[in-house]
């Protein structure tokens, strides 16, 4: 084996290595909690990933149909902190809840579930939900 061939082989091996790492990265993203924006009204299933004969069984990204929160002070805090664990669909799905019920819900997210929300942001989120999502204030 001459020097040139060895160099080409090393380069080739390096290239394969880079590919494996790159594919591994994408793969890692696919493994768990993989979501993508989608359009309501579409009835076609997301196209499945290419089917290989190995032991890996996979599905396409889970489509997101995320509703908008009502504009207003505190919306950014709600979007930022609540969105870690769930989209705003968890807020818009609820029936109109009393101010006390919203306070209890948000407090529960921190104290019980373990959401890490700073005290001032938590207060703004509670006020925001009480301003827009109670029986008296909810518009839609």
């Amino acid at each position, binding site marked *: 084996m001459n020097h040139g061939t060895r160099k080409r082989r090393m380069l080739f091996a390096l290239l394969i290595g880079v590919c494996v790492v790159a594919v591994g990265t994408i793969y890692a993203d696919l*493994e768990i*909690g993989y979501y993508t924006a989608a359009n309501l009204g579409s*009835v076609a299933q997301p196209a499945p990933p290419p089917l290989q004969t190995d032991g*890996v069984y996979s599905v396409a990204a889970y489509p997101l149909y995320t509703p908008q929160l009502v504009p207003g002070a505190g919306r950014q805090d709600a979007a930022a902190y609540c969105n*870690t664990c769930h*989209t705003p669909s968890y807020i818009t799905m609820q029936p109109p809840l009393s101010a006390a019920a919203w306070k209890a819900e948000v407090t529960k997210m921190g104290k019980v579930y373990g959401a890490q929300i700073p005290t001032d942001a938590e207060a703004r989120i509670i006020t925001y939900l009480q301003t827009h999502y109670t029986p008296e204030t909810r518009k839609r």
Partner: protein
Amino acid sequence: MATYPQKAPLVLLTDRPVQLETPRHYFLEPITPNDAFFVRWHLESIPNEVDLSSWRLHVEGNVNKQLSLTFSDLLHKFKPITLAAVNQCSGNSRSRFGPRVPGGQWGNGAMGCARWTGVHFRELLDMAGVKSGSVQVQMEGLERGKGPRGMPSYEFKKSLDLSNPVLDESIVAYAMNGEPLPMLNGFPVRLIVPGYFATYWVKCLTDVRLLDKPDENFWMNPAYRVPNTPRGNTTPTDVAAGKVKMIPINRMPVRSFIISPGGATKIPAGFPVTVRGTSFSGFGRVVKVEFADSLHGRWREAKLGEDLGPYAFRTWECAWTPEKPGKYSLAVRATDEKGNVQPDEGVWNPGGYLWNKIERQEVTVGGAA
């Protein structure tokens, strides 16, 4: 409606974590197709893929011999068992509650019935050898969240008492209606707990853990608890006053549903209608379904469909010919083999669980010359 991987269009409740409801018409059949089966996750980091070359089901904790079983072990080393059983979310019909309670605002479609095939749960426990002093068995799957480790926003775990006879009927299922489970319904295996609410039917099951003291993790306490009162009924006042003792939710009360007619279409007077629906009970077979219309008010017995087993859907039908135009209210109630009958009162508890009030369907009958 939204279409998710391996699923038909389903009613969208939430997109992340995913909660999808089965449209009503699917309940005309006693078996719910896999692609129409409802979906409910608590946490957002659920698998998009599972590698069966490295996947293992562990039986661990207070056992003589820890087990680490492959998917192939489950298929070949045990005698397969198949059972038809209804899987119903604890919060099914929560949107009917008054006063309203927070949580997934399900209509009646957070339920489904499939033929589950797998391994006797007890056989796995016996193979591992449950050590004396064990009190509960805990189940955990691949469901994870973005919260801090050890917190309920990070992991979902459920437990059952070892003395609970439901363990003798429970199955670790690798097939649903003869097919691999859809990812969103718990591929590659999930626990089947016949008669019990779906909260115990842990999806993407990976760890079965024998405990020497009761599981006090959030998902057992205070979550998924119901008042220790008749029918789990209480009031917001009693809850606020701290008067209510709460216990883990368990068996599903008897229920029945009118599926057709659905009320969206006028029926001509004199038209011979076949009213159709379904029923089930977590306490055993439905033995009687009765139907009434608001004009006559008298209950009469409906004809029951095929018996697929004590924990399956039991469809029913009843001939009904409305003679005169008008607004009618149709009602249905079921009785199970233990003598439980559906009540005509709702239920209220803070979790929004155990709804089983008599269902009614308004229909409009029009004139016809």
